């Protein structure tokens, strides 16, 4: 294990969950492909940071960082795809034409609006957490040398990312860089809480809407289907007298 990539206590507790994820082929592929999306999106966001920072050194470092992240995305994507090819019969259950889960690595950060010190602190904390987690993942894929090698390579880069973000933070905010890191940790925790809360709200919302769907909708569904049967196919004339009020949303 890299001496700089410490595993967070929470991740130690969650070790059985991580093992459950990585021991299953489908979940492993899904995870790798999801990482590919997250790393690529994160890379694009850091690229954006390189484009907007006024600091020449940071621009070069962000650019390096972005290139690394985009490369990690490619590594994960290629490995996920290679694994998929070995078990092509599972494709249908895995994908079914549905877009993969993914998202912007830094999507809750508006890069243009963040000063460099806040972005550096955020990146430092995020990279450190990712390095800790990737260390666990690397150890859990011992049966798969190629995937393990990818984690090894990425971990080396993560150490560079952790270091440069911290040293540069110390350079741009020499008096308060430690405070900035703590602040980033607190912000990360808060965002994690918000994500969990939003997830719970989404589940509750889905449940309520599903109940409404089955209780309230059947008569309207019957009427909608009756109306559909009366609809002509082909051209529908557009009435010149149709309500075309400029201010109407209908």
């Amino acid at each position: 294990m890299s001496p700089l990539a410490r595993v967070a206590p929470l991740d130690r507790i969650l070790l059985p969950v991580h093992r459950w994820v990585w021991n299953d082929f489908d979940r492993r592929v899904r995870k790798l492909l999801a990482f590919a999306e997250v790393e690529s999106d994160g890379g694009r966001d850091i690229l954006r940071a390189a484009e907007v920072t006024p600091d020449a050194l940071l621009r070069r470092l962000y650019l390096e960082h972005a290139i690394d992240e985009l490369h990690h995305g490619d590594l994960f994507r290629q490995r996920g795809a290679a694994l998929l090819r070995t078990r092509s019969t599972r494709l249908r259950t895995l994908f079914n034409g549905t877009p993969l889960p993914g998202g912007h690595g830094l999507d809750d950060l508006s890069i243009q609006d963040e000063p460099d010190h806040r972005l550096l602190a955020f990146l430092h904390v995020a990279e450190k957490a990712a390095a800790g987690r990737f260390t666990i993942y690397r150890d859990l894929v011992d049966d798969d040398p190629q995937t393990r090698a990818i984690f090894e390579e990425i971990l080396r880069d993560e150490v560079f990312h952790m270091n440069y973000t911290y040293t540069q933070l110390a350079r741009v905010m020499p008096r308060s860089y430690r405070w900035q890191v703590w602040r980033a940790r607190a912000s990360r925790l808060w965002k994690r809480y918000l994500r969990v809360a939003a997830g719970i709200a989404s589940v509750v919302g889905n449940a309520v809407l599903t109940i409404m769907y089955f209780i309230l909708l059947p008569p309207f569904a019957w009427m909608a289907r009756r109306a559909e049967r009366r609809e002509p196919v082909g051209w529908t004339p557009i009435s010149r007298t149709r309500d075309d009020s400029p201010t109407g949303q209908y």
Partner: protein
Amino acid sequence: MKVLGISAHYHDSAAALLVDGVPVCAVQEERLSRHKNDAAFPAAAIEWCLNHAALEPADLDAVVFYERSMLKFERILTCALRAFPRSWRSFPNAMKNSLGEKVWARGIISSHLGVPRDKILFTQHHESHAAAAFLTAPTRRAAILTADGVGEWATLTVGHGERRRDGRTDITLLREIRFPHSLGMLYSTFTAYLGFAVNEDEYKVMGLAAYGRPTLTGQVGKLIRRTPDGAFALVPEYFEYQTTASRSYSSRFVELFGPPRNPYDPIDLETADGRRFADCAASVQRVLEDTLVDIARALHQETGLSDLCFGGGVALNGVANARILAESGFERLFVPPAPGDAGCAVGAALYADRIYLGNPDRDVPDHPFWGPEVDAKELARAAREDDQDVIELEDAAMIERVADELAADRVIGWMDGATEFGPRALGHRSILAAPHSHEMRDRLNRDIKYREEFRPFAPVVPIEAADTYFELPPGGARLARFMSGVFPVRPEWRARLAAITHIDGSARLQALEREMAPRLHALLEAYGRRSGIPVLLNTSFNLSGEPIVTRALEGYSTFRRCGIDVLVAGPTLVSKRATVRARPLKEDVAWWSGSLAGSGGV
């Protein structure tokens, strides 16, 4: 009178500003946010437009949203009801998706801009497409055809428009085909089936089609039947997009065409599966073309007009456009540079200005360059800070230098003036290269664009030389103005234009008038003097998965990450130095980290 047009919330949001009936600027949100096909409310685009025109939101006379959001919600709800109970999984997400933001367009606009609610107007989605196609075209009377995936209910409309001598404008949409019957959705379904991204990669299907044979048109014909009135209807059993957002094709579709492509597998045309996918693409392309040609031909016979304006996302299909021009009977076909939903921002503003507000007709400048200007000084500063070779040259010397570089097989990142509005790079944000060899095509695909081998590159040629190298039908040069048509490369030139000649001998060319992009035109002539052929390979200045660059620094970061040799912005030219490498920088930082490693941060 100042009118702001907005398109948002589905894909490719944008804003456009009209002052006294003439567009003064327009930009897609993705070009500013740097998220490809950004569908978010275009706050940055609006802000840029207002700043560009030195306006405050309070100065606006009207803000026009490009569709009627409640009517769209009605369609989504109705489709969920019709699919009951199969729609139970998708219903909660559809409701959350719509009710979360999309149906509250008036409130969102009002809260973002602080404009009174009575200044916020709405057009129908296809009215916006129609206005974007007709009111930006240099014609006074034309038939209008719009086709896309779906707007509110309409998926395809036909009509006509007239700009009268007295200044009044008429746009009359006569009839429509309604959801779920949609040519755009048919094509998008195949896009998904072939493992590409819906609403984004449809052009890949068109590119792949050239590698296949339309042997499956019979099967595609089972999905779409022609109705006695000359329209069409999709057979719902083969589709699921009308009932769920998670998959667009049904199991019956898969039974008909075989297993779908794994998006992560490359398309290998040497394998049976690869050929099957190419044949699928060729077949749906053929059916799309045939259907559009029939509809356009009937519209020509009905209206007796010589011009057709074609808008909507389907109008991005250059192969179909060329066939419409050749076979429908229309003499001229106008496709705007942004026929998709982004262009609806311009269309909605124009529609409201001419039709709702009754303002007199004005000619709209016939070019696509409505976005932010490039700042060459920004590029020079950044490149010098990074120890790159930077030189600044007068215009004529710059053209000669770049032509020399191109003749030496170097790849140029070319930024000039205002960015294009729409998905095509039309000479202001382009990657340019010599068009002569397969090696150049492969190099661009491998080292610069990082994309599939089967995708072709487009050429740009001075309009006066276009006919020498390409077989342009009457009206073809106009269609090629914004790269909207695919035409054959003349057989005698194919070997010398190998990098831009597709497998079927065609090319999606841009025929460039000097007035539209004078510097690029001069560059083509200078390159022609060196190579004997005034044609360049012109591909959009972006990498895979990224929007086209807008600012100089975005061009510069792209230049640093790929195999572009030379970057040009206005009078500034940057050559890539082989000695500027990442590793020393990493080592430096690792060394710095030693002094802080014990400080507890890491």
